[in-house]
């Protein structure tokens, strides 16, 4: 099982020649000369695997579940050959203090060299009592492990944004990782959960290129999060044509028309679902008939029903959307105008007939 990066690449059908080519490309992209390409090749052939510590806060473990679904590379190759997953309470063999010792040891032995992956988030209310693995508030453990980490990966919408437990009224004050750890690079890999190959893609990129991926304004890797579901949705021609599912399981649904009217959030959701797709490309939510619910977006739980095209405006209470507010306002204004016009007319008529001619109508 212990294989170097090189061996894994070999096993996946990559020849020594293309391996070396890969190394020289890597060297070139890092601005190094050809001499250093050999160094990289050597390093990848022999180097120690990067320790990864995977902590769980308040979450549902679906990020781990998604991760083990990875097909390329296989999750087992990532876990056993590309990185050293020294701590992940969902799969690790050790428990209790034998498990906790690994945290301490990693901080001492690999200070500044390990990656901290976080699934879920710390609740801050009431001194953190809503998540106390090991008898201590999770937030303390998170800060302790973050302090020695090279970089932090925020897995999923929980770690990235807060996700479901942070939905209103957020009873535990669940808080995304970057709001607690401010002095380390944080790579957000949102999604509820994120796509398996997106997760392994981010990890292997870091390991293979020995640098962090380019991030967008919100801290997400551009390679997977720079476009919306809608931008590459295969139902987009139906959107442009004006062909929509009008009701669940209607004729249009059976023909695979656009789900916009069923509340699809593809137009506002940045994720790789419509391109990478799920579970090795088998499908993705829209392909299986349900709209995107926006699961990789900040606060997607609190925008109103997943089935509404026009979503809620928090400021005006849970029941309102833009059209309801707008029509109400236009109705009030319209009525006021009509009334005002009526009074104006009556005034004008009555003042003229009463004979007390006002100045302004002198020349009317």
């Amino acid at each position: 099982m212990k294989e170097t990066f090189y061996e894994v690449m070999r096993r996946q059908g990559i020849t020594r020649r293309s391996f070396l080519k890969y190394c020289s490309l890597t060297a070139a992209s890092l601005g190094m000369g050809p001499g250093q390409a050999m160094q990289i090749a050597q390093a990848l052939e022999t180097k120690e695997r990067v320790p990864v510590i995977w902590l769980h806060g308040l979450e549902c473990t679906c990020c781990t579940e998604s991760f083990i679904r990875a097909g390329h590379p296989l999750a087992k190759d990532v876990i056993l050959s590309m990185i050293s997953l020294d701590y992940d309470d969902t799969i690790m063999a050790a428990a209790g203090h034998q498990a906790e010792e690994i945290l301490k040891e990693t901080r001492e032995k690999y200070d500044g060299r390990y990656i901290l992956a976080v699934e879920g988030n710390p609740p801050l209310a009431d001194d953190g009592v809503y998540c106390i693995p090991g008898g201590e508030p999770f937030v303390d453990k998170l800060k302790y492990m973050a302090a020695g980490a090279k970089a932090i990966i925020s897995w999923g919408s929980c770690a990235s944004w807060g996700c479901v437990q942070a939905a209103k009224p957020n009873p535990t004050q669940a808080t995304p990782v970057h709001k607690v750890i401010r002095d380390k690079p944080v790579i957000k890999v949102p999604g509820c959960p994120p796509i398996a190959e997106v997760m392994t893609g981010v990890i292997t990129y870091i390991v293979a290129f020995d640098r962090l991926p380019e991030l967008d304004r919100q801290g997400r890797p551009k390679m997977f999060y720079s476009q919306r579901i809608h931008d590459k949705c295969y139902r987009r021609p139906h959107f442009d044509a004006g062909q929509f599912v009008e009701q669940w399981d209607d004729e249009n649904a059976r023909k695979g028309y656009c789900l916009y009217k069923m509340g699809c959030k593809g137009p506002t959701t940045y994720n790789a679902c419509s391109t990478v797709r799920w579970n090795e490309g088998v499908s993705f939510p829209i392909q299986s008939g349900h709209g995107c619910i926006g699961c990789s977006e900040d606060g997607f739980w609190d925008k109103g029903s997943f089935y509404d095209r026009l979503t809620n405006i928090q400021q005006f209470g849970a029941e309102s959307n833009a059209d309801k507010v707008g029509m109400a306002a236009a109705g009030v204004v319209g009525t006021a105008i009509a009334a005002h016009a009526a009074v104006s007319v009556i005034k004008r008529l009555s003042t003229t007939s009463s004979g007390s001619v006002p100045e302004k109508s002198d020349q009317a």
Partner: protein
Amino acid sequence: MSVTTPNGFNLDDSGRRVVVDPVTRIEGHLRIEVNVDNDNVIRNAVSTGTMWRGLELILRGRDPRDAWAFTQRICGVCTGTHALTSVRAVEDALGIQIPENANSIRNIMQLTLQVHDHLVHFYHLHALDWVDVVSALKADPKATSELAQSISNWPLSSPGYFRDLQGRLKKFVESGQLGPFKNAYWGHPAYKLPPEANLMAVAHYLEALDFQREIVKIHTIYGGKNPHPNWLVGGAPCSINLDGTGAVGAVNMERMNLVSSIIDRCIEFTEQVYIPDLLAIASFYKGWLHGGGLSSTNVMSYGDIPEHANDYSAGNLLLPRGAIINGNLAEVHEVDLRDAEQVQEYVTHSWYKYADESRGLHPWDGVTEPNFELGPKAKGSKKHIENLDEGAKYSWLKAPRWRGHAMEVGPLSRYIIGYAQGNPEFKEPVEAVLRHLDVPVTALFSTLGRTAARGLECQWAAHKLKYFQQKLMANVKAGDSSTANTEKWEPSSWPRDVKGVGFTEAPRGALAHWVHIKDTKIANYQCVVPTTWNGSPRDPAGNIGAFEASLMDTPMADPHQPLEILRTIHSFDPCLACSTH
């Protein structure tokens, strides 16, 4: 001090206190504290959920059609079962009928979860309690091959295959970077497998890790992704269009074929790898019959997998329904989730507040109000807990009770009830296993029994998958391809004030959601979850929960290395995010 609980356990907390926190290879955060006597036998057990997310509060005021998505995020491991429970609860409240095809698709989704979850549990969460990875280095690949071929026709079993694997394992261990296998209990005296069996198990650990990815593709086809596929109140979100215009945008022949082929492989893997491994491993451990706990006295299941749509009566459910109390297998009680006297939750020992904590609340009247406090006998502080005080509040799990009884739920409970009801689908495989291992029926009430029942259920579910996929095809062939009923989709068509309950048999046991819908919004939502039953803390009468009961009287080889505790607790497949939600 020694006391006897109403459910018949002698608790003695005078011995040495041992803490296991975190309990790993589970979902979520669990803490176990036990007291061991001078012979290192467990005499007192305390199970504590150490997380709470507040989903029941978050659901209030929401659109009931959205609830499935929220509740599904209670857990990503038993992904889908909460969503199914939720749409059933909402449909029950609003009187929505679903099409026959939607029922088949939902059953397929649920059975896929059973197969996946059980397989992953056995190999990736539980196996390392029985399998010593490091001992596999000492195995003879040829003997391993013989062992493998003697129990199954599975093709990956040549000496070369095992030699290659062993070689890679050796390099891995020698690298000094043990990753997830670091600091574990290798060499612990409780491990009983010969090196060859260990090597075979390691091979299947890796094969199962690869194969589980395939199983979930059924969810991907009908629900768009896994984990967390999509669901719909009123049916299933995927349309069926076998051969019409635009069929490629729906469930079509190619999709159906993909599902069918995955189902065949599920049956194959379960029967040629999982069950043979289970029996082989069990045969080395059949002397270790600890961990029975409540299984020999109080078990319950709600039933699931409706044959026909919209009928949730026991007769229409393929998984058994009922409750057994006080060990009387001759009588299976009917379970009524609407009856205010049956399912009730207590919080005397939970970190919640009720107006009157001496009484339990039926979930329709359920209250969730957090209230964290450590008891007077607790050691340490809120920010650094050393020991909990089980005399006071000590867990984020509520304590659900059925007519006042602490109950065990899960595959073993389902099989015991099916067995007691004389249902051959459950009785015959159980008897076959008992015969194969040459153990009495009482051996069922144990850690091993729980693990075995899960394997049998995985096999049962794989076959039922095939059944419902064929049923779906037949119904489409007969001209019905409807998957959703939208008559009551619009909230304006709903009654003003209604209550509903939905239930499933989740991989870990009986699950139900109770919903109160008022003015088209959720007024109250309460989930009572399998691990809430099993991991429950004490109730006001002093009954201990199923986890706690199962640990009682177990001897430990070395309390410092809590392998026995892990083994028994893992046999329930705990899910703490589920249990506290």
